């Protein structure tokens, strides 16, 4: 078990680093997929089977693909240009390390830091329990409904924002910028 955990941890962190540093965006997206895969395995390790599968379905199935779609749609040329990181990336690096240190310190100072996993009562079916929790009125039905409303709103919003009545649903891929086509503010080609 610990071996498995260590392997997945390494996989996750490596792929996360690759996501962050790789210049080619599609590779970044793919590395993200592998990271998500690692997280799914972690869930499985934590006996949250349902979550693992849901993670795979949602993240890898939908979100990763969405990312790849987005990357495809917003590229001038197929090749990615320019450095991946912006100029003062080392400041960001410093801050993130600081945050990591801070979090680690905070967590370590927390009492239940190195706690051993609690025993799962036999016959306890996480999925059904989760189902009940989400549905039963005195537990989490309201957040559940609100989440559904949120999703619908996001759906409508995304469609509305991205929908481009003139040029069909996707801009001409590879729409190479004409000479001097500076990003005019309020480009009113619609």
């Amino acid at each position, binding site marked *: 078990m610990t071996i498995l955990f260590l392997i997945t941890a390494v996989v996750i962190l490596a792929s996360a680093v690759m*996501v962050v540093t790789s210049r080619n965006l599609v590779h970044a997206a793919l590395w*993200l997929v592998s990271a998500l895969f690692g997280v799914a395995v972690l869930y499985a390790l934590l*006996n949250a089977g349902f979550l693992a599968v849901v993670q795979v379905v949602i993240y890898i199935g939908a979100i990763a693909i969405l*990312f790849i779609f987005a990357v495809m749609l917003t590229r001038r040329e197929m090749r990615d240009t320019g450095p991946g990181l912006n100029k003062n990336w080392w400041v960001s690096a410093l801050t993130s390390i600081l945050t990591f240190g801070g979090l680690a310190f905070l967590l370590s100072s927390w009492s239940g830091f190195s*706690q051993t996993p609690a025993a799962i009562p036999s016959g306890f079916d996480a999925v059904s329990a989760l189902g009940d929790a989400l549905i039963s009125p005195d537990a989490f039905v309201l957040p559940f409904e609100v989440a559904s409303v949120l999703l619908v709103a*996001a759906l409508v919003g995304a469609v509305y924002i991205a929908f481009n009545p003139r040029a069909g649903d996707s801009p001409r891929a590879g729409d190479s910028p004409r000479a001097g086509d500076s*990003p005019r503010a309020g480009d009113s080609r619609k």
Partner: protein
Amino acid sequence: MIPLSWYLILSAALFSIGLFGVLARRNAIAILLGVELMLNAVNINLVAFWRYLDPVKITGQVFAIIVFAVAAAEVAVGLALVISVYRNRKTVVADELDMMKW
């Protein structure tokens, strides 16, 4: 067995890597990738806490589910925005999108 601290450290690391991604990447979509990583780190924490503290109470998992929903919604809207920005500005590099400059 694996103590809880490992998971917490792992998620903190993942979180800070995501943070770095958000802060350092030039491309808007890369920033969203970073956000995704951070959200996953949070999820790991939640499930770890569920598993290690009190498995019977599945609030941890409910939280994770809700985070899933929110993450999905966030990505959808974020990417839609990025695409429309690209359509108007012909660029997705975060530094170039500084119209809100004074």
